[in-house]
């Protein structure tokens, strides 16, 4: 039950989100660039906070800069011999790029219009929280020796500066390429190979059947992954009352409610059912499922994620 003061809270979409005119979208891109520096700092803080927590679980193994030399086996192509190393003694060595076989994490963040929503119960829109979690997670993974990339935008990177790199990538998106109005709530095709790990952060507002279908398509390609469901507390709690007209963020439809309080229970039931369904679909397809509410600290979810992904990777 929402408390009374919640009842008078409003919700907003950022920026003063008007549907249609592309002007809003270019400025939206600019706005992401505005908040990114803060998110970067925050992500670093959160990641640093969690470094210690997951340190013990780091697998022993070759670091990212590790080069393994193994003795040349007769029959191999001579072009593979690393002559510089071999010159040091009498044997021949082959340089093996061990990291090529390390697992790759792909970070996919939903930038669709619905992610630009923030109620007054949450400080930030869902998008910001998604970016924050994504960046921090990338940092954690890189520190754990994994490589992280954004499908279609960056190759898998193992840079210590991964947060910066990804943030720059997001900031440098050309206006129009990421149109919140047309951005997918779930990617159809991604340049991901088998055995890669895909972290999908978004609100997945779509019919569950569509979600199931798309996720199954990804899963069938042998991609493992984790679904991070971002929800605004207002979306979950429905703390509204009175006669209201709700408007969708991705379509022009509206939904008039005579008395919001009366349908709050139904609404909550519906949303939790959908969440449950999303979880079920994710788990069925071998995906991890984490739900994050934007009024909760990011670190909480990040810890769960780290445990989940770390465990999977191991």
């Amino acid at each position, binding site marked *: 039950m929402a408390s*009374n003061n919640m*009842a*008078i809270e*409003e*919700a*907003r*979409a950022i920026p003063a*989100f008007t549907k249609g005119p592309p002007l809003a979208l270019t400025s939206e891109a600019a706005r992401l660039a505005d908040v990114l520096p803060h998110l970067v700092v925050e992500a670093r803080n959160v990641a640093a906070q969690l470094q210690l927590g997951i340190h013990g679980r780091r697998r022993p193994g070759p670091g990212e800069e590790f080069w393994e030399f193994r003795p040349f086996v007769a029959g191999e192509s001579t072009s593979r011999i690393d002559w510089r190393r071999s010159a040091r003694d009498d044997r021949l060595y082959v340089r093996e790029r061990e990291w090529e076989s390390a697992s790759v994490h792909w970070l996919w963040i939903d930038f669709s*219009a*619905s*992610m630009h*929503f923030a109620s007054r119960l949450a400080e930030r829109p*869902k998008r910001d929280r998604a970016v924050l979690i994504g960046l921090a997670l990338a940092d954690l993974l890189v520190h754990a020796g994994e490589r992280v990339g954004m499908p279609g935008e960056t190759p898998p990177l193992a840079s210590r500066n991964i947060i910066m790199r990804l943030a720059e990538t997001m900031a440098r998106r050309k206006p129009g390429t990421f149109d919140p109005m047309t951005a997918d709530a779930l990617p159809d095709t991604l340049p991901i190979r088998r055995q890669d790990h895909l972290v999908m952060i978004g*609100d997945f*507002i*779509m*019919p569950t059947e569509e979600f199931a279908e798309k996720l199954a398509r990804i899963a069938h390609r042998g991609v493992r992954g984790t679904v991070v469901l971002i929800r*605004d507390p207002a*979306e979950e709690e429905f703390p*509204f*009352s*009175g*006669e*209201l*007209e*709700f*408007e*969708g*963020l*991705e*379509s022009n*439809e*509206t*939904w*008039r*409610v*005579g*008395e*919001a*309080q*009366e*349908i709050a229970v*139904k*609404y909550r039931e*519906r*949303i939790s059912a*959908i969440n449950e369904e999303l979880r079920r679909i994710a788990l069925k397809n071998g995906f991890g499922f984490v739900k994050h509410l934007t009024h909760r600290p990011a670190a909480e979810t990040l810890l769960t994620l780290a445990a989940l992904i770390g465990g999977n990777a191991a």
Partner: protein
Amino acid sequence: MIAGLSFLAPFALIALVALPALYFLLKITPPPPRRLPLPTLPLVKDLLGKEREPARTPWWLLALRLAAATAIILAVAGPRWQPQSAVNTETGTGPLVLILDDGWTAANAWQTRIARASAILEQAANRPVVLIPTSEEFPAMTPETATTALSRLLSLTPKPYVVLRATALDVANAILQREAGATAVWISDAIRDDEDKDTIERFLKHAAGRLEIIASPAAAVTALSGINQSGDGLEALLRRAAPRGEASQGLLRAYDDKGRILGDATFSFAATATEAKAKLALPIEILNDISRVDIADEKTAGAVQLLDAGHRRRRVALISGETTDTAQPLVSARYFVSRALQPYSDLREPPRGSPDPIARALEERPDLLVMVDIGTVSGETAAALTRYVENGGMLIRFAGPGLAAASDNLLPVTLRRGGRILGGALSWDKPQRLGAIPEASPFTGLTIQPDIRIERQVLAEPDAELSRASWAVLEDGTPLVTAAARGKGQIVLFHVTGDTSWSNLPLSGLFVDMLRRCLTLAKMQANAGTQAMNDAKEKLPPRLTLDGFGALSAATAKAQPVETRHTAPASAEHPPGFYGPPEASLAVNTLTPQSRFAAIDFGAARVITMSDARAIDFRPMLMVIAALLVIADAIAMAVLGGALGFLRTSKRALVSVTALAFSLLLASMVAPESAHAQTPPPAPELDIRSIRPEDIRSSLRPRLAYVITGDVRVDEASRTGLTGLGQILSQRTSLHLDEPIGLDPARDELVFYSMIYWPILAGQPRPSDKAIRAIDGFMKQGGTILFDTRDAFVQRPGGQPTAETRALRAMLAALDIPALEPIPQDHVLTKTFYLLDRFVGRYAAGDTWVETLTGPRDAKTPARAGDRVSPIIITSNDLASAWAVDRFGSPLFPLVPGEPRQREMAFRTGVNLVMYVFTGNYKADQVHIPALLERLGQ
């Protein structure tokens, strides 16, 4: 349709047709809800199909809005309810004669009159009309069209003077007689002048059956008939044509010539009275500035009195040649003259017997100097008098034995030696009556009472100028009052005495009137030095005139100049207003005290009252209703839109808000009544819970108390000292005390304690007023405060007071304390328990002061005591420090000078003090025990 309901803009009512349309419009467009973004909308939009329908506008909101719209439309249409007088203009076939009263009395409700008249003219649009305003001197007899009559009607204004209806009614009568089909309507003010009585009766008789009368109530008009000088201000005379039937009140306002309000006075008419008086009591300087008095809220020329110089109060000096020991002061000339002048002037009389009364009187700069029987004025005084007169003063002299005997040059005429006796034993002339007043005399117009007889007079030497100088003469032409200009001033001589010994003139009203005229003249001279007022032939041009509503404006073109001694009421030629130059204006008023008017008796004629015609305008009411409805709508919208969502969601909040609103409403309705019905509040009941446990404990066992000073060391010393003293007391006496308690006199109840120890700190602030009151009450109730300045060590005999002493003095200055003395050797304090000769503490040098004993000092009595315990004891020996012991009974402070038995003596001091406080003067009585026992024979 209700009769009399009309609309200013009936076409606006057409908008009412649009109401059903508005109904449907409102029904299908419910109030817009708040819009909120909701990203999860696609997931839930199928949640309730029904709710997605546009919400219906609630029926009550619909009703609210329709009502608001109706109210606004009706308000725009301007409904007014007017009981239509059934003036039937259809009966006649000939011309319609419309008589409209437009005298000053018609200014009351003038708009209504015009409205009624125009309504009648509109009704009679197809008939020829003769419009006769009663003020018209030559009313047109030829009919005109209603339209022209209407335009003429609208240009009419009420006249500011009394209008006689004779001409108008005769003309109307003539028309009615001439044209058989003519009918008449008379819109009357129902007030007539006395002269009009017959005319009106005649007209009513002739026109009977063909005349409709619309009349306003005669009592509605209140007139200000006159302003008179009275003893202490102005007295206004108010009149009505008819009594109103209920007591009514009103307000008079006085203005100066710039329109500033100088004062006001209320008047009240009794229920049956047609006359009332009001008194404007103001200082004379202000009275003299009054130039206009009117009845507030009465907008007629008759409710205004303009005041000219004639109303200014004069400063008059009266000097009499009589001696101080006049045997019969009430028949003396001085008395008659002062009685005549007193009500109209500011009369000053130099005290009798004062040296040089004339010079003294002149110092007060009178407007008028009256000398009663002063024979010769000479030397310096004569010069001063001459100067006074030549500078514009007025000198009135009365003849008398003194004047007849001697003569000086301050006379208007040359007098013959010796007087003239008429009707005396040695004379064959009879006492003379007064003759007609000469034409040029300022006394013109005064009524001469026929019974005035002149028995003696002084005679003027006849010369050519004498008749011109005469203001009043006897029947045989000998002057009775003569006057002559001297410089700017004037000298007037009454050839008789001011008392009744020479004539009975001083007993007559004429005497008063003459003196009043002189007063008027005196002011003229004093003010302007102009001779204009003396010259009857000079005319004064109109300067400002009143209109019919009593407003002053530049003189109308019709106004003719008036004579300087114009006293008649205003007329068409001389409308009311100010005439002549500003500094010497003559005021002409609509009404004079002589003006009489009465209500018209319409007899059997049917009279439609006009007061009913006042329309009730519903517009403001409807506007207010519409505004309230719109506000209600806004609130409803807010509630529906969820802005006040908590009201809807929380039933409790809704209930509490409603309850609050209702209780406020009830309170506002009940409050005035309950204020009346309120009985004196019951005495506050003692709430047992409000008593502090400390107080309960204090009331159960006696305990010593000390005042907390805020200095921890001092407070600790007080506490330990009183504890130590308590231990000693319980060891040595039967007094077992509870733990001592620290008090704040401003906060704590002191009534439980007998003795309070109060150590004084250097530079401590004066206790608060509350504390002072508490201490004062404590001492008055029998408690004792032991002040300890603790400064005996630093005190120097005869030296500067120490800081502690100063602090104590500052505190005691605010208290009511008795006289003090050092404890005398026979004081009961020295014997209450131990026999003591001094009261020591930590120091031994300081004195201890108590209330001075008033009883007789008797060497034989070893102890004296007053009737009560001294409420105050002051010491400087720091007693508490001497008594202070720690838990183990060891003393805490060293003593000064530290004599062997000093601490013991300090304790004994304490014991004696406590016993004194607790037992009072019991020990003083104890000393008598041996004698008592002896008397009992033991």
